[in-house]
């Protein structure tokens, strides 16, 4: 891969982006960790910014697309995965990312999440999971309640949705977890996710320092635990067993929980340019009607 000689790979990801002082996340936001990790992962993979297309969700986390170099698109609430689906189908040479929060992905965007898992497009999704609607000032999200003992719950306050369990149950071929407080580890996981041929989910615990006073950095640090190297992510039963075991001990597993490459049929890029339409023969379409 060729890069402009004057720019170091790391600096490359700073161009075409909102300057650092304009980043509108609260100081200490977990999303800074995700941003740092994402850049590390892209550099490690020797990707160039023009090769990446990032679909951002609505909310604080979706702004990440503007805080690093690369193509970005930002549409409606709950939509990133569906836009990403179309883009990945159309132009398979792109590295297509969906970067969104837990509310965008698991509440209003649930319909897209489950079906993206089934469709298995070549898209990497990072959920910046903070358990709260931050941008609208602290309402419950579908992942509110992580780690709380809920003896009783109400219709108003249902329990935590586990995106990893949901993804595996919905047919996802890659599911992992990371913690924004450990960007180096995040970057390793992101690299694995981007390399994966198919839909890759990374559920990233990314603390909201302003509105989530329960799932703080300290709380996360106390509860996360790296998956032992003995775990075989290709074994689905082992993945479920691991999730159960960590639940039992009240821990959050970090690492690749499940990865089973499905046989994916490769598709060529769809025609775009004038010259690709020059030889289109209409006869096969007309004949059946004659």
């Amino acid at each position, binding site marked *: 891969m060729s890069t402009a000689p004057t720019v170091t790979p790391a600096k490359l990801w700073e161009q075409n982006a909102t300057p650092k002082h304009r980043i509108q996340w609260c100081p200490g936001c977990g999303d800074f960790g995700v941003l740092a990790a994402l850049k590390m992962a892209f550099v490690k993979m020797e990707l160039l910014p023009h090769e990446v*297309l990032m679909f951002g969700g609505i909310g604080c986390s979706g702004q990440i697309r503007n805080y690093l170099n690369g*193509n*970005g698109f930002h549409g409606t609430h709950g939509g990133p995965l*569906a*836009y990403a689906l179309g*883009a990945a*189908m*159309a132009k398979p040479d792109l590295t297509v990312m969906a970067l969104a929060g837990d509310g965008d992905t698991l509440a209003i965007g649930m319909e897209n999440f489950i079906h993206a898992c089934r469709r298995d497009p070549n898209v990497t999704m990072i959920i910046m999971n903070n358990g709260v609607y931050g941008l609208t000032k602290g309402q419950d999200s579908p992942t509110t309640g992580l780690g709380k003992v809920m003896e009783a719950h109400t219709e108003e306050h249902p329990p935590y949705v586990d995106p990893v369990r949901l993804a595996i149950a919905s047919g996802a071929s890659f599911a992992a977890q990371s913690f924004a407080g450990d960007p180096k580890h995040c970057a390793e996981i992101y690299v694995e996710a981007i390399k994966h041929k198919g839909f890759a989910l990374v559920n990233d615990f990314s603390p909201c320092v302003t509105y989530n006073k329960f799932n703080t950095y300290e709380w996360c640090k106390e509860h996360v635990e790296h998956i032992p190297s003995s775990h075989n992510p290709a074994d689905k039963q082992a993945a479920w067993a691991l999730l159960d075991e960590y639940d039992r001990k009240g821990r959050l597993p970090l690492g690749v929980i499940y990865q089973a490459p499905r046989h994916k049929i490769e598709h060529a890029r*769809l025609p775009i340019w004038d010259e690709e*339409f020059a030889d289109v023969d209409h006869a096969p379409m007309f004949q059946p009607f004659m």
Partner: protein
Amino acid sequence: MSLKGKGRRTVVVNNMKLLVGGVQLRDGVTTITDILGKMFVRAGLHILAMEKGYASTIYGAHQYDPVVVSDTPPLSWGDDHPDILVSLEFDTNPDVPVQPNRDTILRHGKNLTDNGVLLYDSTTSTVDTSDLEARGIKVFPLPARQIALRELKREVVKNTVVTGALLRLLEFDMDYQLFGQYLEERFSKRGREIVDLNLEAARRGRAVIEEVMKVHGWTTVGYRLEGRKVERPALLVNGNEAMSMGAILAGCRYYAAYPITPASSILEYMEAYLPKYGGRAIQGQNERESIRAAIGASVAGVRAAVGSSGPGISLKVEEFGTSGMTETPVVIINTQRAGPSTGMPTKSEQGDLTLAVVGGHGDIPRIVLAAGTVEECYTLAFEAFDLADKYQCPVFLLSDLALADGRKNLPEEFFTQNRRPVVRHGLLREADLRGDGYRRYAMTESGISPRSVPGTPGGIFKMTGSEHDEAGLVTTDPPKRKAMYEKRQRKMQTYLKEDVKPPQVFGTPDGVPLLVGWGSTKLAILDAQARLRAEGLETCAIHFTHLWPFPVHLVRPLLQRGSALIVIEGNYNGQLADLIQQECLLETKRILKYNGRPFYTSDVTGGVRQLLANGTRVVRVGERAPEVMLETVPEGD
């Protein structure tokens, strides 16, 4: 059909409306009209079948398919008066158990032209048709199912028995040259005996007709079809097929849609054909996934479209704004059906013009086109993709159920001559992007900011549905907001200068009543215009295809030239009439129909007479129940 010459005992040649009716799915109504349609077109005749009536159930409801056959391309489907009625019910319609094998006759018999023809399946019993016979109608009981089941041991050939009878009635293809060819194409792979069985079935149907004619001493039924010299090969297509072909030839390579009547056949076509042209079609898991995926494909540089009908379009409204604000092209096909809500899923209406023009929050730059004929379904598809590309906004391509399912023959050269090469507008290539500082939303005089395809070095973009600056970064800065809003809307001014088309004008508008329409009412209006002219009333017909941005500068001077402005459309309020009043500040009169049936020629002529006679402003037509029991029949959705 016109009543010309039908009172006398002359033979009407190549000018008739044939209506086949029966029980949906069970009786194979469209099997017969498909076979006949193909044969007629191959014999050089013209057909128009745009009134197909079906129900939103899979099985059991009444279905009918009127087909106009003539020497020259029919102006329209005319009035609700078939000349030849074919009833396929062999026993009870499960919907209407009190009417064994006479449902179709009860529904349509009273509309049958005097001296017309009735052919019905008499397997269960003969039907009392004395009232029809009193009007000179020739009645042919044909125990088609019995012949198929008892004599030929294959119930499935009952429709071939009927087809054979019909060919004899119409004295058409008596040597089975065309019919034999059709059977060969259809069944030869499954064996010679299937072809022979069908030929035998047709002969048995013919024998029954000849027997009835002998008994009555008839030498003709008064209607006859004659094959004509076939100068040019023709295609028999419906509006959805024409639109799909147009879309693919216009360079659409990504199509996403959720199943919905009457748009689903576009999805089916695209699934079958797009892969052959290097494209992909995807059935969305819901209406929103469909349009979002299409927008995603469009962001990646591919010409993309979605198709749906009213309820599905309502669900997509949020993305109108995404497309408009991010300046991502997307073609939104809406084959309108009767609303609101689930409405009448299998009935046609022109009720979504307002939704297309104003749907969504904020002021969204958009272009709205509407097809009025099967031909325009094809030609406007090219325009829709070109305009979407050029103006980077949602382009609505409106059709309606009558067009979606409506079939007609068109010469092959119509399709080849109207094909346009694919030219991508404002799509930058790598060579255009050398150097720094590409800005996705660069301010331009035309309002159009050239796009880059992701993956192109130098073309990195940030696109967003939030307000943004030239680089695509989010802003709420008042001057930047104002400038960007105006840039987007400036594209619509450019469109009005460079690409909008005035309405089509048929006749001279000066001092005569103007008959204004859009969508599939075009044919009824043109037919009515001809009939009014024959009656001594000159009018001018004005048909809109380019509805938004509204070309006031072209329309207002035109509409001011007439003596009265009569807008004819299939909805309750008069959505085009409202638009004309709003944009041109001209008062409109309205003829409106929303009972689920298409405009018949007499609806238009009657409405015009009424409006001109007594100064009424609105005439709502279609009060007479067109059928006996249909409206009480429960239907699903």
